């Protein structure tokens, strides 16, 4: 075992009293401390800047209504410039440089557009309100209330239900596939394999983490999709199942590595006692070691979950990207990450679609942040118990 930070620290503090330190060194050491705060700064900045762009939606300050209140063309001179600028959707410089004629023309266009839109019943809705984001709604022209994500259309539909369901479906498949396999392999490698085999098996399985996710996405798209479709006979070539399996491959190294560490960290005395009582190595592993390592395995699953919902390229390439609400794993699916990756490039800075995607990103950040926190909690508890401190 390598010495813990505590051991290194103790050795320092024992000798520190007699040291001579120059002023320059004091400054350098303060500098070292300041640089080490950068990780905190980064997490804070991510939180701030991803959250900031999405906040107006959350607070209800943004509207996506296709048809806002119409200012009559004749009233142009009576309207305050700031309001007019917002109404016409111009930036400050654009507004300043534009002459009166062009503005009049824009207003006429706007009024005409409003007239055609006026026939659409839903045009006045602010689709960014909570009830439209989270619950199905009876849109004009549809037979029944439906949850639809369709940001690029006359009526911007921002229901996140299809995306949430899509993300959960792909993640579920990934966990169902990778957790049992990784856990079984972790038990074998840590408890049952011959030590000389263990030496190369662990790094070999961890090498899966060296495959970039875009390569796994490519593999799922070209090889796995073609191989699995005739095998299961489903209709849509790219779906939650294919994407989930590829996602599973991506999180296997995480789940395997952490469960293996947890199993290995169980004190050898547990195993020795079980063997002394006449159990086989398998019985010792299954009935003694595994129960002792359960918190670590939970942490591995939680971390794997966090990794799976945040993975982007694989689902972008292999899930089919149709945002439909369905319970079937074999339907084309669109996840949160894939939505951000596919749509952000075509949005306008500061506009409702842009902000909505940032809100989704903040949601994702919060979910992985919490799952990480939870996993760390579990693991510190486990470590303390294994070292006999709790």
């Amino acid at each position: 075992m390598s010495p813990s930070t505590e051991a290194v620290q103790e050795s320092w503090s024992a000798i520190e009293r007699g040291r001579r330190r120059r002023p320059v060194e004091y400054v350098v050491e303060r500098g070292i401390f300041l640089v080490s705060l950068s990780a905190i700064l980064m997490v804070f900045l991510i939180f701030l800047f991803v959250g900031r762009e999405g906040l107006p939606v959350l607070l209800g300050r943004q509207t996506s209504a296709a048809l806002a209140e119409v200012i009559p063309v004749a009233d142009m001179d009576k309207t305050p410039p700031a309001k007019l600028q917002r109404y016409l959707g111009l930036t400050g410089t654009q507004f300043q440089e534009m002459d009166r004629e062009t503005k009049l023309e824009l207003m006429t266009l706007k009024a005409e557009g409003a007239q055609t839109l006026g026939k659409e019943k839903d045009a006045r809705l602010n689709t960014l309100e909570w009830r439209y984001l989270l619950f199905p709604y009876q849109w004009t022209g549809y037979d029944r209330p439906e949850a639809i994500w369709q940001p690029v259309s006359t009526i911007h539909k921002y229901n996140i239900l299809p995306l949430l369901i899509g993300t959960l479906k792909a993640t579920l498949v990934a966990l169902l596939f990778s957790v049992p396999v990784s856990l079984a392999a972790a038990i074998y490698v840590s408890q049952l394999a011959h030590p000389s085999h263990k030496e190369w098996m662990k790094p070999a399985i961890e090498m899966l983490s060296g495959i970039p996710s875009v390569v796994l996405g490519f593999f799922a798209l070209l090889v796995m999709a073609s191989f699995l479709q005739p095998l299961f006979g489903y209709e849509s070539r790219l779906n939650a199942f294919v994407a989930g399996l590829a996602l599973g491959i991506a999180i296997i190294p995480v789940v395997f590595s952490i469960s293996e560490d947890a199993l290995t960290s169980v004190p050898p005395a547990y195993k020795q006692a079980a063997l002394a009582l006449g159990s086989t190595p398998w019985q010792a592993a299954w009935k003694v070691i595994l129960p002792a390592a359960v918190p670590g395995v939970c942490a591995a699953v939680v971390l794997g979950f966090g990794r799976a919902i945040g993975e982007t390229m694989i689902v972008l390439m292999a899930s089919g990207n149709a945002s439909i609400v369905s319970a079937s794993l074999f339907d084309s699916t669109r996840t949160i990450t894939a939505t951000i990756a596919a749509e952000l490039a075509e949005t306008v800075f500061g506009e409702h679609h842009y902000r909505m995607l940032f809100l989704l990103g903040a949601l994702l950040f919060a979910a992985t942040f919490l799952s990480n926190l939870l996993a760390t909690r579990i693991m510190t508890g486990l470590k303390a118990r294994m070292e006999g401190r709790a």
Partner: protein
Amino acid sequence: MSSAAASTPSETLPASAGFETRRRDRASMVGTAITGGATLLLLLLLGVILGNILVSGLPGLSIRFIISGADKDMFDVNKAGVLPMIVGTSLRVILMTLFVIPVGVITAIYLTEYANPVSLTTRIIRTAVNNLAGVPSIVFGLFGLGFFINFAGGTLDDLFRPRGAEPLWAKPGILWASLTLAVMTLPLVIVATEESLKAIPVGLREASLALGATKLETVRKIVLPQALPGILTGGILAVGRAGGEVAPILFTGAAYYMAQYPRALTDQFMDLGYHTFILSTQSPNIDQTRPILYATVLVLLLLTFTLNVVAILLRARIRRRARASH
């Protein structure tokens, strides 16, 4: 293989060897077979993925393919090349290393050599590092766009560019992509460096201090040189991971096509991973472009996967040495 392993006494547990039972238990045999099978499945999976890419990629891989490119016909099997993408990916990764290594190593030095392990500050730093490691790569992309391009770039443009001019900094570029990746790989470098710092015997530090060196001198002249392999591992891991990442650079710098190489920090670049994405999803005829797609993936794997393998092996060696020295 699995049943043989089950009945072999474990060498790591010499005390238990004498008590090993020879009892034949059906459930034990089934359990061992299942877990052994799972291990085999994972190893096979790795083999199948790598084998498939190697076998299908090698025929398309030629000297011409590697040293040509920047041709408008990126989907033409006879003309396409990957040199611009190799250059772009290498440049962004090298730039990233310049940012991430100093910050990561200094943080690791603080955490192992200076910080009080139970103080609140240290605990918060550790929590931050842990959480940074779990942030989804697409969120880093959003962060790069929101912070680096719109905020930092926007501020730079406001300060140094005339009003109404074309934005120079507030648009995707190789500098922003590298910085985004540096934030993403920071935890990797910190953890790897910390691990190697902890593996250095305490006696070395004590000897240096006993000879009258100050703490900082000891860190600089004794501890850091010893930790070099670990720092190297961290750097290689970061490069291997960042080299294949596409999501963080989607909005911060990668270009679909560029006629020339990036010449300034604000230029966009072509990227191997992003190019793989384009070739697999936007090809007009996937069967015809399959050879160049496979060859591109092979080049990408050769650049990133080999680095990862080297890092994993280096790390395993450092861990063994650390175990041996304590």
